């Protein structure tokens, strides 16, 4: 088979292509053959999301969830928003996991070799569920930018990794949230792998002064829209 490169498996106007040469790790990892399009069967319209609900309240506070009694160093921030489906309806009680570097730009991970201090009071991971209206709220610290070996003098802009399940197997989403006004955005191939300005803007949180709490923490709003059709399951004749 000599099919052209596989592009993206979802809307190519929104989702990055698998092969994006500026991000070097894609070169040997992007599929080269065409995707096989399949109907949405019960395996696709179901998914683990609705059954994954084990969170504790303290999981939503990354500044204090290290179990040390101490508080993480850095600029305290509130990240809040809503998770919506493609129809604009809220996705209630869905799990959100996040992980991130500390305020110095260092992950607590054995493969992170960045010469920056670890923070004993910061694990860099947390989770929460959306409420009835699809809303979530996390307290953390603003992560630092950090260098990476992709190209000469390459730096990742500050970002928080997000993992969401949504209602179906096909609504699974892993992405990154960026901060507004960061001059590193234009230089980052991972951010720029997203094909359009409008789609990239979906990955940049909005500074929200109404979320900011006086004398306490800066507020950012970051909403999600989970891709995928959301018709009544099994209504089509071609599956079920």
């Amino acid at each position, binding site marked *: 088979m000599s099919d052209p490169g596989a592009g993206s498996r979802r809307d190519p106007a929104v989702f990055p292509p*698998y092969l994006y040469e500026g991000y070097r790790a894609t070169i040997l990892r992007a599929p080269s053959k065409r995707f096989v399009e399949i109907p949405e069967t019960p395996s696709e319209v179901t998914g*683990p999301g609705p059954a994954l609900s084990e969170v504790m309240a303290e999981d939503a506070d990354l500044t204090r969830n290290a179990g040390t009694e101490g508080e993480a160093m850095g600029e305290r921030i509130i990240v809040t928003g809503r998770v919506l489906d493609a129809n604009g309806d809220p996705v209630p009680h869905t799990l959100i996991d996040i992980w991130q570097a500390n305020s110095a730009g260092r992950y607590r991970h054995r493969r992170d070799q960045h010469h920056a201090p670890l923070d004993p009071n910061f694990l860099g991971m947390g989770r929460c569920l959306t409420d009835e209206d699809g809303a979530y709220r996390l307290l953390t610290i603003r992560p630092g930018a950090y260098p990476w070996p992709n190209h000469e003098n390459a730096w990742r802009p500050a970002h928080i990794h997000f*993992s969401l399940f949504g209602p179906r197997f096909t609504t699974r989403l892993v992405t990154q949230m960026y901060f507004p006004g960061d001059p590193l955005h234009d230089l980052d191939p991972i951010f720029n792998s997203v094909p359009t300005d409008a789609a990239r803007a*979906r990955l940049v949180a909005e500074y929200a002064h109404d979320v900011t709490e006086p004398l306490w923490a800066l507020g950012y709003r970051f909403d999600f829209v989970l891709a*995928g059709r959301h018709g009544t399951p099994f209504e089509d004749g071609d599956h079920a």
Partner: protein
Amino acid sequence: MTSRLPTPSQTVGPFFHDCFLREPMDVLVTDQTPGERIRVEGRVYDGAGEPIDDAAIEIWQADDAGRYRHPADLMTSATDDGFLGFGRSATDETGAYWFETIKPGRVGRNPEDAQSPHLSLHVFARGLLDSLVTRLYFGDEDNSLDAVLKRVPEGRRSTVIATPSERDGRRVYVFDIVLQGDNETVFFCTR
């Protein structure tokens, strides 16, 4: 106002392990889970044939009666066998992942749309800007009538069929995932 534009994906990167593996999720079964115990294992490879040591695999599957634990599964019966059907495994330094689970039942109510037993997979890795979606079918099942498998070009079907073997009296299915190249695994889209 929130735009209706979907949120794009980004790579999982190399530092997901603590978050993704904060509780072990590679064993899907307990002693009480009904069904045939199986082990699924394999390695993930890149386009140069090198093992990928920073991938994560998620599986989603029906129980042994072919039911998904999900409100949209109309076949869900009153009896609850406690089986979630979701697992996650990160590859080790040799690119290997594994799951202990049960073989799922056939999904689908009618003979014409019945699907052969299968697992649905998301593959995540540094260098993957979105997860890849594939399926694992079982080499010792009759897969000839499966509607999804029929859409796969015949010459590539073997890439989504796991090879059965026995080890210590137990069924083991080997399923390698090749992201790129001649033996590239078939990946699906549902656009």
